[in-house]
């Protein structure tokens, strides 16, 4: 538990390095919601394979390093209604806002984008209020 922040920092550096490669080599902003969303709604048709290749990397690398760990519990809820509601909110919300934790957060704030800061403050505050509401007041999560 005490070393969690070190792993967080190391993982964060890897995430940022991925974003740096995607920007400097491919000339693209590493925003997960934009990369996925462009495939789903067809707006990213022209860069389809680049998006699929990126997502394949995100999907596959954890499988490669997974065996190093004896067990990983993601502690995800088994309440499907909560998962579906949350998935819909994340899907619609990130696309309306044009970004999520990676696009607005990591890439936006690091270039001192005002929109990145505003979006990040908004989703962290909403997430905090959401957890208070749904966990402490309503007890659904």
């Amino acid at each position, binding site marked *: 538990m005490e070393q969690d922040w070190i792993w967080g920092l190391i993982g*964060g550096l890897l995430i940022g390095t*991925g974003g740096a490669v995607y920007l400097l080599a491919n*000339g693209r902003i590493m925003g997960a919601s934009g990369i996925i969303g462009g495939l789903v709604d067809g707006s990213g048709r022209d860069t389809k394979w680049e998006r699929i290749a990126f997502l394949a990397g995100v999907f*596959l690398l954890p499988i490669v390093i997974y065996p190093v760990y004896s067990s990983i519990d993601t502690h995800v809820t088994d309440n499907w209604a909560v998962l579906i509601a949350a998935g819909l*909110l994340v899907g619609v919300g990130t696309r309306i806002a044009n970004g999520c934790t990676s696009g607005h957060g990591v890439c936006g704030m690091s270039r001192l984008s005002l929109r990145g800061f505003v979006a990040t403050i908004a989703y962290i505050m909403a997430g905090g*209020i959401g957890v208070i509401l749904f966990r402490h007041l309503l007890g659904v999560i």
Partner: protein
Amino acid sequence: MRNLFAFFAGGLFGAGLFISGMTDTSKVQGWLDVFGDWDPTLAFVMGGAMIPMAIAWILRNRRSTPALGGSFPPAPPQRIDRNLILGSVMFGFGWGLAGLCPGPSVASLSYGGVGHWVFFLAMLAGMAVTPAVRRMLDRQPATA
């Protein structure tokens, strides 16, 4: 070559999300839960990720084109509009509810179990209907 580098970048992203613990929903909800057993890990992940990314933005300014050709993304718009706030608030609620956001939802599909697929498919459905939602929002007067 573009696809190879995209795969490499995605691999770093996926590995980083996994190692940092960001595919563990309890760590994300633990960060958001300021009245519970608060978990600061996410701040280290975000801070760590912004270091190489900030350097990348500085390097970007010294180059006219990306290494593999094409062009760099245009400067970000600075307009704070209703959609940015409304969308981010919706996203935040969903993020708090499940403890998942788009990147980690992909990174955890292979080992997280069926719940992660339920979330992922619902997220795709949400993304698929967004163009219609956006048209609906654009018809409302922007007073909100």
